[in-house]
């Protein structure tokens, strides 16, 4: 640090803005029609980030949502909508916890043949609503925790990923040393905490839905 950065003069930092989710409103949607596009839907929810969550418990409960809902064959939505009733061909989810302001939980779904993006989105929203109304099972939560925690160990195999994790934590104003305590905090998350976070945030008013249609003819 001293060797490489000591000669750089200190300067006052610009004021940092904390972008917050838009005020609550009705479900938003948009339709894309492009040649070559997969037919599918993207559903995103305005969620707090690691920085803007009301508590540590809430922040870590939110981190478990992608694995609980949509990542892996035995995630809740894949079991229901890819395996049991194959409305979707595939599904995955992403949530970026490290933002200065609020963040998004996004679900990317590709439709089975003969299923329209509108129908797929409606089915997803129905199942998400059912999840929102009932806390996850202990077994599902254990699975999500095991996956998230193992992935964090696996990422340490890559020095670049480690630097990235430390940098992101610092860049959004959190203490990089706190990364050491994440394992314990994630293990401590209860089904009630996840249920509460889902109830509060996976609402219609926080959802934005994109319908993706493949249009074979040239884009007008």
């Amino acid at each position, binding site marked *: 640090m001293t060797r490489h950065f000591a000669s750089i003069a200190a300067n006052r930092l610009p004021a940092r803005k904390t972008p917050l989710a838009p005020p609550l409103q009705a479900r938003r949607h948009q339709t894309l029609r492009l040649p*070559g596009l997969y037919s599918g839907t993207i559903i995103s929810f305005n969620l707090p980030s690691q920085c803007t969550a009301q508590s540590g418990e809430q922040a870590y409960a939110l981190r478990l949502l992608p694995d609980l809902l949509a990542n892996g064959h035995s995630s809740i939505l894949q079991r229901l909508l890819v395996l049991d009733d194959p409305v979707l*061909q595939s599904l995955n989810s992403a949530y970026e916890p490290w933002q200065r302001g609020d963040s998004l939980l996004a679900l990317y779904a590709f439709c089975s043949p003969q299923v329209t993006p509108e129908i797929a989105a409606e089915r997803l929203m129905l199942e998400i609503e059912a999840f929102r109304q009932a806390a996850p099972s202990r077994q599902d939560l254990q*699975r999500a925790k095991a996956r*998230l925690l*193992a992935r964090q*160990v696996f990422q340490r195999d*890559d020095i670049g990923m480690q630097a990235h994790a430390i940098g992101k934590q610092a860049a959004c104003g959190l203490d990089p040393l706190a990364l050491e305590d994440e394992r314990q905090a994630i293990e401590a998350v209860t089904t009630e905490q996840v249920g509460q976070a889902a109830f509060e945030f996976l609402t219609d008013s926080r959802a934005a839905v994109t319908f993706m249609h493949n249009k074979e003819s040239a884009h007008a």
Partner: protein
Amino acid sequence: MHDSTPTPQPTETNSIYGGLVSAQGLDLDQFESIQTQVQAWMTQAGTGVKFVEARGLPIVDVILRFKAGTVQDTTHAGLAALTLYMLDEGSQQAEHLERLGAVFEKQIRLEHATLSLRSLSTQAVLAPALALFTDLVAHPAFLSSALDKIKQQLLQSSASRERHPALRARSEAFRHLFSGHPYGCPLGNTAQGVAAVTTDDLRTFHQRAYSASNLEMVVVGDLSLAEAQALSRQISQALPQGWSATDLPTVPAATRATLHVEQPGASSAVLLALPLNVPANDPQFPALVLACDVLGGGFESRLMTQLRQRRGLTYGVHTHVSPLRAGGLFTAEWEVAPAHVQGSQALVVTLLRDFIEQGPTQAELQVARKHLEGQLLRGVAQNQHLAALLTELTHQRQPEDHLNTYLERINRLTPADVRTAMHRHLDLSYTIQVSVGPSVEQQPLPAPDQ
């Protein structure tokens, strides 16, 4: 995203480091060496195993590579892919693996079907994960209720590959270059072949192609040699026994061609291919890898400089050498405005001809060496990459000391060596040009910026 601002000219005092304090004291011309200790053995059931003990992290990576690729489809095109994709379909094992946080992946290519497991090394996780992984590979259920769904997914995935312009261009090159040879079916399936496959076919194929003697295994991670030996024994004993794939016939003689696939879109995918029938373990192969890097390996490569920096024709142009067991090819790929397809093809051919004729400069060669060195050093520093690399080297039948002597060998190669290798193996009279995109009136290329 690449930065498109020109690199500042080096100053005499601080050559290429641009005045960076953190780079002072670094000697980039000093070659690092690799000292990876690889243990190798053969199990009683005939599985070749490579193992590297890596205690830094509580992780174990296991890779199983069967010679069960799509070229082994002797009855129905699609059988090899369906067998692999059906292994974990509807099984409890895959679900249990997820619950342990283990990552299970499968991949099918022309020459191999590869399965990998990444697990924490804690006994409470690793032991059940390995048992599930072994069971999944050795005793698949092949549920007939799942077969139709997997068939449909395979056909949809192939259809979407065919719609993807760059992948379509690659497929067309394979179909032309390897017509009549198993490599000539790059998708690895046909609608007819897929329709004909039954669960009995899957079982028969699995009994042969997933044999212990048709497998190469790589294990990297937090376990002892004795534990790795026990693990390899456990997997190889559970598998079917006694079958090995034979080598493929050599590829047919190549002919030149210009192919176009009409497809709507805002840009065209363009590919230039040359046959390159040099196995990866040929002593001249490293010289061809260096040549490929100088030509289209990085941001400073010849093609990138001419097509992107100087003419703004494309976002990226990349070259590859693809060594297959029975043949291979060299490719250059780029995306361009539909009106510049022919102009850019002519430009690439000219640049390629000049390069084969003149060979690289000493400076270009040094950049390529450092590029390859950096890639390799970063690769061996990560368990997962190291495991994948050892799997690839085994598949290529590289000698035992390949990894630890590679940097020294590429360091010894001269511009003349690279030129000689290109003269011997790259022949532009067999050029295959492929374009995928809309047909429009062709325009002359813009003048270079300097």
